[in-house]
């Protein structure tokens, strides 16, 4: 390469000792301070119009947010829908996800729910039907019920926290699970507090 400019070579220049981590946060140069991911539940009220869900899911995939679940449904107000998003991100990522979500024009509000919020998920678990009684009693243990039974299969419905459903699915493995479908988390703040 030809050309060039006058001035001191790179190593002859003074260099500061400071450092930032990959999130751009200034840190002690000796420590490796990389933020740990955490699970955050975001609740967004949006205008009830076509294309909003696509815009939200597109935003999350485009920006590479780590989504665990995304649910959407109508609310008490027919003009509004609520989207509940569960993401796994370090703190700066959670903040960024909230702000990017808020930027979408059809999004009315976004809040991060407290870990104590009511969080529920529904699962349909279809298992081998050889021992319907045993299936029934396991379902009861998890407060669930059989919603369909055939010669070969029983389908059980379970509602509850994500952990409970994980546990139920694990337990049902002994009956040879054929199919599982889960809705992802729906959540609301506890008590009289309104989920914005």
């Amino acid at each position, binding site marked *: 390469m030809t050309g060039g400019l006058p001035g001191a070579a*790179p190593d002859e220049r*003074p260099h500061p000792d*400071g450092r930032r981590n990959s999130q751009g946060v200034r840190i002690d140069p000796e420590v490796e301070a990389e933020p740990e991911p955490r699970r955050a539940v975001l609740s967004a009220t949006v205008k009830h119009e076509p294309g909003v869900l696509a815009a939200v899911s597109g935003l999350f995939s485009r920006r590479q947010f780590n989504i665990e679940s995304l649910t959407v449904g109508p609310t008490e107000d027919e003009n509004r829908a609520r989207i509940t998003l569960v993401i796994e991100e370090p703190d700066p990522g959670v903040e960024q996800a909230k702000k990017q979500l808020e930027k979408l024009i059809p999004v009315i509000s976004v809040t991060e729910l407290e870990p104590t919020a009511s969080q529920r998920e529904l699962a349909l678990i279809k298992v081998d039907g050889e021992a319907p009684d045993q299936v029934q009693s396991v379902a009861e243990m998890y407060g669930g019920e059989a919603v369909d039974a055939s010669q070969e299969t029983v389908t059980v419905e379970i509602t509850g926290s994500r952990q409970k459903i994980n546990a139920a699915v694990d337990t049902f493995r002994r009956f040879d699970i054929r199919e599982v479908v889960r809705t992802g988390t729906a959540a609301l703040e506890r008590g009289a507090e309104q989920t914005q």
Partner: protein
Amino acid sequence: MSEQVPPTTQTEAEAAASDEAAEDTPEGVTTGASSVVRALENTGAEYLFGVQGGAIMPVYDALYHSDLNHVTMAHEQGAAHAADAFGIVSGDPGVCLATSGPGATNLVTGIADASMDSDPMIALTGQVPTDFVGNDAFQETDTTGVTDPITKTNYFAGDEDTVGDVVGEAFAVASEGRQGPTLVDLPKDVTQAETDVEPGEAETPDTYNPPEEADDDAVEAAADAIAAAEKPVILAGGGVIKGEATDELRAFAREYEIPVITTMPGIGAFPEDDDLSLEVAGMHGTGYANMAITHCDVLVGIGTRFDDRLTGGVDSFAPEADVVHVDIDPAEISKNVHADYPLIGDAGRVIDQLDDELDRRPDPSDRYAEWREQVGAWKDEYPMDYATPDDEPLKPQFVVEVLDEATDDDTVVTTGVGQHQMWAFQFWTYTEPRTWVSSHGLGTMGYGLPAAIGARLAADDDQSVVCFEGDGSFLMTIQELSVAVRENMDITVAVLNNEYVGMVRQWQDGFFEGRRMASEYSWCPDFAKLAEAFGARGFTVADYDGVEDAVAAAVEYDGPSVIDFHIDPEENVFPMVPSGGKNGKFALKADHLDQL
């Protein structure tokens, strides 16, 4: 510079016919399409850049009776870039139009470009009739789907009674808050349908409330940090210009005598001939700007998104500095670089708030004196320079300087993307906002010429427009020369012709051991002849002696002219911070790259 001839695509006979037709044209809105046109008229839009086609024909038909000036472009990409540049230079959203399918997809690069640079722009696309949508009909594309990630917001207009309001809203959203492109997709049945509903005022939806003033406590804390600093710098981004905050920025920097660096989109926010100016930082920024960023203790970033071409590796960006970040978009705060003092609000308002707060404290500028001296020493140590021996091939830097000399301070410069773009900002002295029009975030080759067309129409008649192009960039959208000729636009195109896609060649030499795969462009056409073929003036210059005369003749010529400068094909852009590198470790010459 002589007056611009107002663009018109009509012949006199057509104009007479349209006058006649106008007499029996009803005053009010009659169709969805006329509502679209009325909405545009209401916003004060002057120019539309577009290309015709089936699905958008009802809108064009409604334009037949409108006073809006439609500029027919050679390619929809040109229409989008022209609208983008119009928005940058005028401050008001530029408007582009295209038909469905290929028309809409051809706009995509230009929309993405405007999106990355937060330029105000609105795109109107035709769409197949609603009943055909989703059936892969002829020239159907899911335009809102395709453009969702690259627009601030977009709309599928499904109702002739509200389509005008939707266009008004799109216009308002494009220009308010953090600016950006919006799009309205217009199904043909909707634009053809009868309606007499007049569009209302252009308003943003009630869910959209960009912040005005920063939180008082946050301002106080930031002012404390600035007042306590010893080595502060201001980093002015494109948001300063977009937010019309250049006066506030200039007054603030001068009052406290804080050195000012700009980002590339921020060029023109602060005059580069001011003692406090360190010009541009980043990959090809000045050595002194990058030294100052690396050693400052407080960095006041205003209207910048801390792009990686600016920061280099984020771990070594301003590693000793507390960051004050002023931005109207909360999502920019701590996105790339953590903000110790986030100030969310309108740039001009927040600078005033900071100023008021600092006024209540003892003047800190004396304490910065030593720092200013240090910064001055770096300016002497790393001057922007180049060698011009007579026997060498022509240096591109010299060409840039001669054009700068030959034109006024308020000249608008547009560029393609590559080495020439870098020389065009390094060796031209920018002093005014809205005079630098370039593709930063997307880095779109072919941007320069169509941008010059949009800039020409937005600029004052006595402002010059100069477009720097590389041979590769120029060829990408050269067809727009036909538009410049048709509209007799006074534009000077300077091709810095190195018979390479030079920036690629520079990276191959620097980082791929000189394997010049696919970077030779020795099959370049004769640009001067090509210009003449289009009906423009053409010049060819291959040595130092010819530069000044050709520049004088081209600038003097009232219409588009192209000067093909055959420059040193091996010239490279320095300083350079390699991608992801440390700003303080810029290379000043090729062998420095090996040391990094």
